């Protein structure tokens, strides 16, 4: 064991332990490293371009901004709605919403190029999982929607809802009746044609789709009289003018008749015994309108009944004698799913009957022939590999739905508002 004093003798006493080379070195190296590293980073990576401070890439849509971060970012403030609204219009989602999220809450930038576009379902679920609304009374819409699997049944298909159009139409007869001639057999596409954008079907119009079989030519010996497909007043006036035209064009046939010129050919009596045009008109108006306005329950043969107005239309109120009937407004619903978007073209690969599977058995107008939600869920499922997608955005729009051209028709009078409110 070395003695204490021997150890002490060997050492050169240091008054103050001078920081040795190592210590002095590391202070210098430290400062130098920090500065050098910073400088290198600034210079060589072009950090004066603001790009260096990105937390993630800019989405493709906004790539045109390049380095001009100030387009969206205001110094030291979070990105405000104002910046987005400079270019984009986005109206309120619902007048009843309790609080409105900011643009950036759903449209997240600086993640990946594609993320920006695909608004995640979860942003919808943030509110719709536990929805509170200002609507009074509370919305009957389901307030806890977490996924498409939990999506409520489409409103039109719920209990108590039906097609309230004031017409009579029987899909079964039209599609499957053997009374229709082979050449005239009907299929879905014969009446239902998609609009130009492929989304919804064009409205059914009499002139386009029904007239061929249901032409309004009441039986008359003169021929060439056709009732216009209009309200009874207009029909009256139309028939009247047509009668006048016929009378003027065929006066002898109508008023005089033809004598028998050949043996065995009976003479033709005059069509009308009337001695004046007016009387003829009244007489024949009466006959024609009686024929036209026969009630639905009439037991005439089909071909005849085919021409009756009330085969399809419904009479409004009681008709007193001598008066023209009133016909109810048909109010055929144009859009069945007003809150969602649907594109028939995107479903081209599916046959009509696959989704509208009950149409061929539908006899009542009030049948709603839409596919149920469960049917959509077969392809738009969460848990299969081949899902067609369950993003809320596939069907629903967030921003003001009244911008959708189709839905301008919500204001039109021939939409069944019942569908929307459920009352």
């Amino acid at each position, binding site marked *: 064991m070395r003695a204490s004093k021997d150890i002490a003798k060997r050492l050169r006493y240091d008054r103050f332990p001078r920081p040795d080379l190592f210590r002095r070195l590391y202070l210098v190296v430290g400062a130098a490293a920090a500065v050098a590293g*910073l400088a290198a980073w600034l210079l060589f990576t072009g950090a004066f371009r603001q790009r260096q401070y990105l937390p993630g890439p800019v989405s493709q849509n906004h790539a045109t901004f390049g380095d001009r971060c100030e387009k969206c970012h205001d110094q030291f403030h979070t990105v405000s709605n104002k910046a987005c609204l400079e270019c984009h219009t986005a109206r309120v989602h619902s007048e009843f919403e309790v609080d409105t999220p900011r643009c950036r809450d759903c449209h997240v930038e600086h993640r990946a190029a594609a993320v920006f576009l695909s608004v995640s379902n979860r942003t919808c679920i943030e509110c719709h999982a536990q929805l509170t609304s200002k609507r009074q009374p509370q919305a009957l819409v389901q307030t806890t929607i977490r996924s498409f699997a939990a999506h409520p049944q489409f409103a039109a298909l719920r209990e108590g809802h039906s097609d309230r159009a004031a017409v009579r139409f029987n899909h079964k007869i039209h599609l499957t009746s053997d009374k229709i001639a082979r050449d005239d057999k009907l299929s879905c596409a014969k009446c239902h044609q998609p609009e130009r954008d492929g989304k919804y079907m064009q409205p059914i119009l009499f002139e386009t789709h029904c007239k061929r079989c249901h032409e309004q030519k009441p039986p008359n010996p003169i021929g060439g009289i056709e009732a216009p497909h209009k309200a009874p007043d207009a029909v009256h006036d139309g028939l009247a003018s047509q009668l006048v035209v016929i009378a003027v064009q065929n006066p002898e046939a109508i008023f005089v008749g033809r004598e028998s010129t050949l043996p065995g050919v009976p003479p033709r009596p005059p069509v009308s015994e009337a001695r004046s045009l007016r009387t003829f008109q009244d007489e024949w108006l009466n006959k024609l309108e009686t024929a036209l306005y026969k009630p639905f329950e009439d037991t005439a043969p089909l071909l005849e009944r085919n021409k009756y107005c009330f085969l399809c239309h419904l009479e409004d109120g009681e008709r007193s004698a001598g008066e023209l009937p009133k016909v109810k407004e048909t109010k055929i619903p144009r859009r069945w799913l007003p809150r969602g978007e649907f594109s028939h073209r995107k479903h081209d690969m599916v046959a009509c009957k696959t989704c509208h599977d009950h149409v061929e058995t539908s006899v009542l107008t009030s049948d709603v022939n839409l596919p149920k939600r469960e049917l959509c869920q077969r392809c738009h499922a969460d848990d299969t590999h081949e899902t067609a997608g369950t993003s809320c955005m596939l069907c629903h729009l967030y921003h003001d739905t009244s911008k959708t051209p189709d839905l301008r028709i919500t204001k039109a009078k021939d939409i069944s508002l019942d569908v929307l409110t459920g009352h």
Partner: protein
Amino acid sequence: MLINSDHARWITGSVVVTAVAAAGYGYYAAASPYGPSGGSWPGLFFGITGTSFMVVAGLLSARKKLLTRRLGSARVWMQLHIWLGLLAVPFIWFHSGFGLGGPLTTALMVLFYIVIASGIFGLTVQQFLPAMMTARVPLETLRSQVDHVSAGLAVDAYELVSSVAGALSGATEEQASLEAEEQAAKARPGNWKQGRRLPPAEPPLASAAALATFYLGTIRPYLRRRAGVVAPVPDFRQIRLEATEEWRATVEKLQALCEESRQLAVQVRLHSWLHHWLLIHAPLSLAMFVLAALHIVFALQY
């Protein structure tokens, strides 16, 4: 610092804090629609807490400048440094959502990892190197004095050799040192560190010529080698065989000197393992703080 049962409180505290934070983060990450983000409120919370941990940990070096002020003992500060520094890691992970972000934040993260890794390396090394040094270098001295002591060893060796073999011509530095010692002793008599030196043998022992050769050829270069070069002690077996009665003891002493020189080299090497990691840890942590400040400013700016 040795991690032992004194640290039990710190360890359990850190584990508990990390577990709680992880639970919070897990919940937050699952609940956020687009995944966790550093700018959201929970993300900011993690970022701020993690950064403040790092700042407090970094204050250790400031504390060391004011050692005599009673601001908490160095021991406690070191414990704070270690455990808060380690705690910063999960918090920064939670803040970043386990991602690297853009260029600035990637650079920052890289620096952070390097600083943490070097710190953990230093801590690991401190667990066993001190004991290793104690065991392997019984003749340890102060690192700052190694050069002085090594020079002293060389002078001692020359003194021993010249006391039997006479003054040697190939040892000018040692002779100059001895001269200087004498002068200093004259100037300051009574210096307790000044021992009496053996004078060179007059006349030199003839039998000691072999020793002189061995000294000049082997021992002297060995003792004068660069600090930190660990080389085995020269082989004394041959010279011991030739040692006569007069200088046998001298040979043993010379061997002891060589052994001491070897041990000092081992000490230098172990010392650098024990300390040089700081050259990475401290400067890079400075750089990291600079980048962190930049990151904070720019993240807030945007």
